[in-house]
Structures are given as structure tokens and as C-alpha cells.
């Protein structure tokens, strides 16, 4: 009779009671928690696949805000929600009047833009010159937003009447490039919405999420339809103000799913679940050549993609011995351009032209001083050949003697290295290029190894100038190319002393008053012939000093799938460019595509003014400014 009983009382019962209580609490809290799952109770029905263009490559994290004054605006806001006065196409060098109807040059310092009488905000209020003027003023006050930094080039923005806005260029030394870019290309926000926010302070303007589809006031043909941390959907506004002028864009919805990484996004594209791809796709040609998919990029053959700016090998002036132009020239000869683009970049770009001018766009070729480049580099197209022997010869001649370790010394005895060449970890194509460049530089007696830090670390070194060699970008092609590229690489005023972070350009801290003089003169010159001469001079300087060695053109990631949508712009039918879904000027693409099974029709307005369309060539604006009086 005695035995188990007292033992059981020792701890068993109490323990059991406690344990089960504990479990009950845990299980019930779990049930409670599962009710907390971020579920949208008013979730919409699934959107129809054949009315929707699915995008990849535009957004990689949860969407944040649809407010142009927040520095971190969600993908889609610029291209689909808010329109500028004019869109710019850099393939055709034309301006497409959007909210603006046309421009009028008043005199050499003043330009007026007429706003379309039909232009309305999505809440029905007319879009006026006061909205335009207000947008600029608010940007100046906030520091971020549409046209940030405009006041360096635009003297004033004034509403002449409700539908006419006047821009004055800042003088003396007018910069017509930046002036026109700001005046014509800046997005406009609704004054009546932002005025209310401004009353609560500038913080309220910046932190405005603008994420309520019912309350969004936009000028474009789309507005937010749905967003959660993994999805953004824009829905078409069927009674959009521009439908009688432009028609309606074809897709009813534009959807972007937030994928974890490139491979998973590309997989969706390959499966036909995404239509409009702006991602890096390794060996993209295999999709149609080997797998037979209805997929294409801009070009059917090499380089497959259009260029989106020049990618440079930047060598910092932080270490004194690396400043020598002769050493830099030898390095330029040692870079394995063709080999590296073939192996690491799938041939997505030709070798960049040493003049810094993107020679894939026909319109930019006029700026290249071919004669000089051919003479300097000794090649037919004026591009730098890969020639290790020549590189070694140059260094031998200049007195860079090899030490016992096989590493060269500068004429005054400084060892060349150890140096690093760095790009962010995970940028596999660039990482491979670094390896290949480093290998060749070692062959000419430079002690260099690769380093692949985290992106934020790399960016910190780049923007403070404290690096040896990096591969990095320039400002991208605008209608002011190549001037903007020269400026980005050579203008010391854009940057800060070594050690202080500056994102505006000139990572290497190249400092040359001669270049600055030309940089100021070029955009003030309306005469094309004279501008050409000035650009040619600048070309000689950058090819002599080599503040950056142009490697290749960064690709404009644009690929499309014709599983659900057809008629996309491409090389053979280049009706609009830029075409990447993250480009701020890509909206017209959506007007010319068609559902699979329907016949796509390029909108008639997408032709130049002389052919009955609305597109205005940049040269026309320059001519008008040339002819204008000074007063």
C-alpha cells in the first residue's frame, strides 16, 4: 500500500499541473498570434493575368512611399504616377510633351511652357502653372523632391497665367543643359495637396506616405491599386485626362512582386509569369536561342542591351604615385577589355570609347573626335587595345624599374603596391572583371589584389575617395551627354576633400582648372560647332590624364516576354526608348504594346513634329535659343 503514493506527491502532481498550465498558456498564445498574421481582410480578388503587365527588377524591398518628396520613393511612382512637362528619349534625342503642350523661347534667358488645357489631376482639379511653380519652390524648401538642386541653374519659375509657366536661366555663365533638363523634365505635384501638408511643417511633407489609393492625386494614367510588403499593383485610371490625346495605356494593371534576388525574379520571367524585365539575366540570349522562348532584349544579337552610362575603372588620386598619367596609360593598355566583357559580361556591352562618349547611340557619335583617339591609341576605332607588351614598354621607358620581387618601383623608388581593386560583394560580373584586371596588372609589375566588401563599405570608400582602384558608374546618359559624363568624372567642385563622403561625382578627386573652364564653357555655348570644338579639347584632357579609364557601358536592363503582351519596342521597331521599367521616362512603352492576339499599334503621336507627331528634337530647342534675342 505504501510505495508509489508518497513518491507521486513529492513532485509529480505539482509538476504536471504546472507543466500543463504552461502549455495551455503557450498554445493559446499561439492561436492568438496566428490571428495576428498580417492578413488584409479587404483583400481584392486576384487581378486578371491577361490585363496585367508583371514587372521584375524595379523593387527589391518592401514598398515605402508614393510621395515624390520622400528621398526613397517606391518604384513606379516616377514612371506611372507623376508626369513631367516633357519626357526625354535619349535614343532619338527628342522631347515628348506630356503635361506641357509646347514651349516658346522668349529670349536667350527665358523659356515659356504652355500646359495642356485638358491636363487634370486625378481628383478633377486642373493642372496649372501654379502647380509647376509650387513644385519647384517646395523642392527648394525641403531639399529633396522633384528637380532637387534646380536653383543652381534656374533663376526663377513663375506662373505667367494659369496655363503658362516661365523659366529663366541663371546668369552669368548660363548652363543650358541643366536649365533645360530641370525646366522640361521635372515632375509636377498637386499644389492643393501639398499645401495642406506644408501647413503641418516640412517634416509632414517628407514623411507623407501617400499610400491610400483612394486619396492619391496623380497626373499619370495609373495610380496605386494595392501594396503590401511583397507586392505593388498599379491600376489604370480609365477616365484619365489624356485619353483623347494619347489614348489609354493598354495594361489595366502593372504589378511588381518583390522577389528575393535576381535568380528567383529571372525564373518568373522565364516561366512567363513576368513580362517586363529590368534585371541582369546571365546569358539572356539562351532564352530565345536555346530554349526557344518568346523573349527578347533590345538587340537580337550582341550587345543585346542598350547602354545606360559609362562604367569606369577609377584610380584614386589619394595615393600620390598613382597620379602619374604615364602609369595610368600603361594600366589602360593592360586592361583585358574584350576578353573580360566576353567572359564576365556575356558580351552585353562593347568596349567603351576612351573619349567617354557612348558610341552605341548614333546621336552621340558626332561628339567623338575620332582623329585624335585613333592617333593616340593606334587603333581603327580609336579604342584602347589590350597590349601588355606596350604597357610594359611604357613603364620601362618612364623609369619604373622592377624590384627583386618583380614589382615595379616609381622613378623615385616607391613600390607600386600593395593595392586593391574593389567592387561590392555579390556583383558577380564586376567581381570577375576585377580578377581579370588585377591579373593583368600584376603582369606589368603592379602589386594588386581584389577585395569584395559589402556594398555599404564599398560605397563609403568610393564616396570618400579612399580607395586605390574601383569599378564604378558615371551619371548615366541624358540629353546633355557627353558633357554630364565629363563633369561627373572631372569636376572637382562636385566633391569634397578626401575622407569626406560626397555622392555627387568625381570619386577620384581629379583636380584640373583647365577642365573646369571647359566644363563651364560647353553648356553656355549654343553654337553646335563651337561646342564640338570645346568637347574635343576636353576629350584630349581626359585621354591624357585618365582620371577614369572607360571600360564598358552599363547595360540598360530591358527584356520582354511576349507570352501575354506583344509589340514591345526593340531595335527593329525602336518606337520608344528608354524602356526599362525603372526608368523615369518609360511610360510611353505601355501605350504601344498590345495583348497577345491583338495587333500592336505604335501611337501616331510617337513621331516627330515634322512628320505630324508631337516629338520635339532637342536640336529644335537649341536652334530656337540660338535665334532668340538676348533681351
Amino acid at each position, binding site marked *: 500500500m505504501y510505495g508509489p503514493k508518497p513518491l507521486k506527491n513529492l513532485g*509529480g502532481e505539482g509538476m504536471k499541473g*504546472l507543466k500543463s498550465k504552461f502549455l495551455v498558456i503557450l498554445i493559446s498564445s499561439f492561436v492568438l498570434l496566428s490571428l*495576428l498574421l498580417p*492578413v488584409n481582410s479587404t483583400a481584392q480578388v486576384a487581378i486578371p493575368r491577361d490585363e496585367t503587365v508583371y514587372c521584375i527588377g524595379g523593387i527589391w524591398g518592401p514598398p*515605402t512611399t508614393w510621395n515624390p518628396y*520622400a528621398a526613397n520613393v517606391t518604384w513606379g511612382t516616377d514612371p506611372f504616377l507623376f508626369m513631367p512637362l516633357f519626357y526625354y528619349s535619349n535614343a532619338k534625342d527628342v522631347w515628348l510633351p506630356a503635361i506641357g503642350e509646347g514651349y516658346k523661347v522668349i529670349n536667350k534667358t527665358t523659356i515659356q511652357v504652355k500646359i495642356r488645357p485638358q491636363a487634370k489631376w486625378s481628383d478633377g482639379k486642373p493642372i496649372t502653372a501654379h502647380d509647376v511653380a509650387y513644385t519647384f519652390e517646395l523642392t527648394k524648401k525641403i531639399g529633396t523632391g522633384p528637380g532637387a538642386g534646380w536653383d*543652381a541653374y534656374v533663376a526663377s519659375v513663375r506662373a505667367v497665367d494659369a496655363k503658362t509657366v516661365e523659366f529663366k536661366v541663371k546668369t552669368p555663365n548660363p548652363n543650358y543643359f541643366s536649365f533645360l533638363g530641370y525646366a522640361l523634365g521635372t515632375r509636377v505635384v498637386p499644389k492643393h495637396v501639398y499645401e495642406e501638408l506644408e501647413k503641418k511643417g516640412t517634416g509632414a511633407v517628407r514623411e507623407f506616405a501617400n499610400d491610400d489609393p483612394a486619396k492619391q492625386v496623380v497626373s499619370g494614367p495609373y495610380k496605386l491599386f494595392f501594396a503590401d510588403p511583397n507586392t505593388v499593383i498599379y491600376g489604370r485610371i480609365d477616365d484619365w485626362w489624356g485619353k483623347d490625346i494619347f489614348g489609354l495605356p493598354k495594361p489595366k494593371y502593372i504589378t511588381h512582386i518583390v522577389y*528575393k534576388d535576381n535568380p528567383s525574379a529571372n525564373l518568373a520571367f522565364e516561366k512567363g509569369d513576368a513580362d517586363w524585365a529590368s534585371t541582369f539575366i546571365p546569358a539572356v540570349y539562351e532564352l530565345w536561342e536555346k530554349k526557344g522562348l518568346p523573349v527578347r532584349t533590345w538587340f537580337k544579337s550582341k550587345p543585346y542591351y542598350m547602354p545606360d552610362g559609362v562604367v569606369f575603372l577609377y584610380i584614386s588620386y589619394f595615393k600620390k604615385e598613382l597620379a602619374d598619367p604615364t602609369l595610368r596609360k600603361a594600366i589602360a593598355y593592360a586592361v583585358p577589355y574584350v576578353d573580360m566583357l566576353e567572359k564576365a559580361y556575356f558580351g552585353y556591352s562593347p568596349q567603351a570609347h576612351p573619349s567617354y562618349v557612348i558610341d552605341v547611340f548614333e546621336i552621340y557619335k558626332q561628339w567623338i573626335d575620332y582623329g585624335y583617339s585613333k592617333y593616340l591609341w593606334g587603333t581603327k576605332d580609336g579604342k584602347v587595345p589590350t597590349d601588355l607588351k606596350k604597357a610594359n614598354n611604357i613603364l620601362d621607358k618612364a623609369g619604373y624599374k622592377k624590384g627583386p620581387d618583380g614589382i615595379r618601383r616609381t622613378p623615385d623608388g616607391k613600390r607600386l603596391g600593395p593595392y586593391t581593386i574593389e567592387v561590392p560583394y555579390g556583383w558577380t560580373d564586376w567581381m570577375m572583371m576585377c580578377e581579370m584586371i588585377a591579373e593583368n596588372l600584376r603582369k606589368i609589375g603592379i602589386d594588386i589584389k581584389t577585395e569584395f566588401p*559589402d556594398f555599404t563599405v564599398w560605397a563609403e570608400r568610393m564616396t570618400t575617395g579612399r580607395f586605390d582602384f574601383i569599378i564604378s558608374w558615371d551619371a548615366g546618359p541624358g540629353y546633355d551627354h557627353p558633357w554630364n559624363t565629363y563633369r561627373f568624372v572631372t569636376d572637382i567642385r562636385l566633391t569634397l576633400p578626401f575622407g569626406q563622403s560626397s555622392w555627387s561625382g568625381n570619386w577620384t578627386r581629379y583636380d584640373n582648372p583647365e577642365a573646369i573652364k571647359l566644363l563651364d564653357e560647353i553648356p553656355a555655348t549654343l553654337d553646335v560647332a563651337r561646342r564640338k570644338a570645346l568637347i574635343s579639347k576636353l576629350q584630349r584632357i581626359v585621354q591624357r590624364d585618365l582620371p577614369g579609364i572607360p571600360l564598358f557601358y552599363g547595360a540598360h536592363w530591358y527584356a520582354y516576354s511576349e507570352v501575354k503582351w506583344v509589340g514591345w519596342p526593340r531595335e527593329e521597331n525602336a518606337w520608344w526608348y528608354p524602356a526599362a521599367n525603372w526608368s523615369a521616362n518609360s511610360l510611353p512603352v505601355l501605350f504601344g504594346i498590345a495583348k497577345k492576339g491583338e495587333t500592336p499599334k505604335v501611337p501616331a503621336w510617337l513621331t516627330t513634329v515634322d512628320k505630324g507627331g508631337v516629338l520635339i528634337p532637342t536640336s529644335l530647342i537649341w536652334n530656337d535659343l540660338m535665334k532668340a534675342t538676348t533681351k
Partner: protein
Amino acid sequence: MRDHTLNPFIKYLGRRFFFLLLTYFIALTIVFILPRAIPGNPLASILSRIFQTGQANPELLRSVERTLMEEFGLGKPWFVQYVEFITKALRGDLGTSISSYPKKTLELIIPVIPWTLILLIPSILIAWIIGNTLGAFAGYRRGSLVDRIALNTSLIIGQIPYYWLGMLLIFFLSVKLKIFPGQGGYTQGTIPNLSFSFLLDVLSHYILPSLSIIISALGGWAIGTRMLVVNELDSDYVSFSEHLGVKSKTIFGYVFRNSLLPQVTGLALSLGGALGGALITEIIFNYPGTGYLLFRALSTLDYPLIQGIFVILIASIYLANFFVDFIYAIIDPRIRLGQGES
């Protein structure tokens, strides 16, 4: 009589609470320092995106950079930033995220917490229950074939790095056999809703990450319980019962229950840490929990978000600790009475 027992108890809890606050303050300081000790530019993620849209011009970049520096107080001396952080954190304001500017860090953290808790709490519980049962059984039959098999498997499983296990699971069950999806909390592109099909979808995405946690945690629990049971078997009451001829099943029951006390503590602690998510597991499975959010915050050097996650995480671990202390004091009179004596 009652006063005598209550007083030391309150004293004990008060003392625990004071230390809790003190260490929490120290933890906040560390949380402030650590992300800033990582070299890198926290504005890189925002500013580099401007280049991508093709709208980069030097004036715009400069203006945006300057505004953001002011907005996040990055240009200010570190002690000013520190005081701001602490005073704001005490008021419950964890600041604005940099990479997801202008979203508040809390807005980003709160929606991912349920995902993490739903992943971890059941997984930890299942691992705990299976592991303990297995360990107790092996311990009770120590030396037998069952014990040897259980012990060795547990040892091996317990030593497998859980991220590797996760990758193996993805490779075999998701990529090769295509039984379960290997990525995300639900199918990408579906809008979360309360339908049956969505819940089923969530469940199918749930299994692999959960399995990787259960398998890797199980071994540890089993080994621990086996040890405890083996120790317990040496107790007087066991030999006493054995001499009395009590059924071995009954003895097993006693031993099991008595060995559980430390394991309950362990369970409470790992549940307390659950809020931090299984960092690597969430990264491998792309699971939308706090661990994945922390990973994103770290890789973009989003100081306020890193701080925010840790502030909440540390608080939850401390609360769990406090809870354990509290339970201990209730279970074990020696603790509360001992406090009174010292």
C-alpha cells in the same frame, strides 16, 4: 507568518527588476555602438538608387544627401546621437528606417513578428516534446540498443549546422523532389487573405523551415534530458521504488517528471529568444520574419532599424528571463527564502 514569506519574495523580485533595468540600459548602449562600428555608408542604399532611375545629377544627389544626413542626424557628434536615441527609445520612438525611409522602424518590425512567432513557437515546442521524450526514454534504458541509437543520432543531429540542414532540406525536398516550396512565407504574388487556400499555401511554405528548426533543436533536448534522467536514476527514491518492485513504467514516469524542471527553464528561455527569429533559417528560406528583416537592416546598415529590432528583441529575452526567475521563485522556496537570509 505571511509577511515573512512575502517580504523576501518581493525583495527578490525587486532586486531582479533593478538588475534587469540596469543591464537593459547597458544593452541599449551596445546596440547603439555596434552598428556604428561597422564601416560603411548607411545612405548608400538610398543614394545609389537615384543613379538607377537615370535621374542622377550632381546637384540633386548633393541636395538629397544633405537632407538625409540632417534627417537621420548622421552629421551630429556621436554623443548627441546617443542621447537622442536613448531618450527617444524610452519614449517608445524607435526612429525612422533609413533603407525604407520614411517608414517608422516599428511599422516594419510589427508586421513581421507574427510570422516569426508562428514559425518558432510551435517548432520549438514540438522539438522540445519529442526531444525530451526521446532523451528520457534513452536515459531510462541506458546502455540498451535504443539508447545507443538515440544518443548517437541526437549527437550527430545536434552537431549539424542548422543552416546546412536547411539547405539540404531545400535541395532534396524542394528543388529535387519538388514536394514543398523552399522560399518565402507564401507564394510570391498572392495577396494574403483569410481564405482556406491561402492558409494551406502558408502551411506548405511553413513545413521546411519548421522542420529544419525541429530537427536541429531536437538532438540538444534529447541529450540534455538523457543526462538528467541518468542522474535522476541514481536517486534514492528510484532504488527505493525498484526495491519495492514498482513497475518500471511508473518509475519512468517519476523520473521523467523530475528531470523536466531544468528543461522547462530552457524552453522558456528559447521561447523568449524566439522573437529574434531563427536568423539564418529565415534568410535561407526567405521567410518574412524578424530574422530576415534584421539581415536586410544589417546589409544596408540601417542603423535605426538594427537598433529597433534589438531593442525589442532584448526586451523580450529579458522579460522571458524575468518570467523564469518569477516561476523559479514560486516553484522553489529555497530561492525566495534564501534571498531573505542574505
